[in-house]
């Protein structure tokens, strides 16, 4: 139970990074921490007591495995996170070229 709370605290740490940091790269790092925390939370939901890894091999029976469905879904979610991170990093690089700074308080041409 404490493990789930620690995961959600890590999620809040990432959320703090996205909300309060002023450097573009630190915002992206905060987003990455949020993605890690939510994937970890989803995998930990599948734990069964005294379970073993859900890999099928010739000499082992199927009983006593942890839930394999969250592990497959988290694989998809990691790929999605990779795509978003790659896109946002290349946008941040081009913003540096055009504006000359990474500080979000100075990147404010759109107002009103």
């Amino acid at each position, binding site marked *: 139970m404490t493990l789930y709370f620690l995961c959600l605290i890590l999620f809040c740490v990432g959320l703090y990074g996205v909300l309060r940091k002023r450097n573009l790269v630190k915002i992206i790092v905060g987003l990455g921490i949020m993605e890690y925390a939510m994937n970890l939370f989803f995998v930990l939901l599948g734990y069964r007591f005294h379970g073993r890894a859900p890999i*099928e091999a*010739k000499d082992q029976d199927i009983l006593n495995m942890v839930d394999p469905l969250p592990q497959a879904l988290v694989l998809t979610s990691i790929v999605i996170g990779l795509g978003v991170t790659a896109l946002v*990093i*290349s946008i941040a*690089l081009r913003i540096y*070229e055009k504006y000359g700074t990474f500080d979000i308080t100075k990147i404010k041409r759109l107002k009103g």
Partner: protein
Amino acid sequence: MIDNPKTGMTLIVKTITRLTVGLIMLFGIYIILHGHVSPGGGFAGGVIVALSFVHLMLAFGKDTAIARISKNMASNLESIGAMMFLFIALLGFLGGSFFLNVFAKGSPFDLFSAGTIPLSNIAIGIKVGVGLFAIFLALVVLERSK
């Protein structure tokens, strides 16, 4: 791979890279092909294949890596990988339903078993590997506009 002392890293790194790049790619292909028997599969194997090209680019400079896979070829290979995956999914219509597993299933834990799953793994492996390398290329070959 010619050693140009002005680009890339030192001589020690270049020598070790020449020895290990092939092994890294072979390991990646092994993980892709055994996706239905052991953990791994298309995405994880594809990332390792992409890392072999990135290793080449880091050690020798970007010109050597671009000589192996140019930007156009990366984009085309990526689309071909995605079309292969869609084609395998459409093959399910021959059996009656979208995405159905229509090939012979074989016996478990063999290399040639589980129907269309290894073929899907290969398609995803090609797409992810080339796609991740194309992302690195796009970030490195950024033209300075000023």
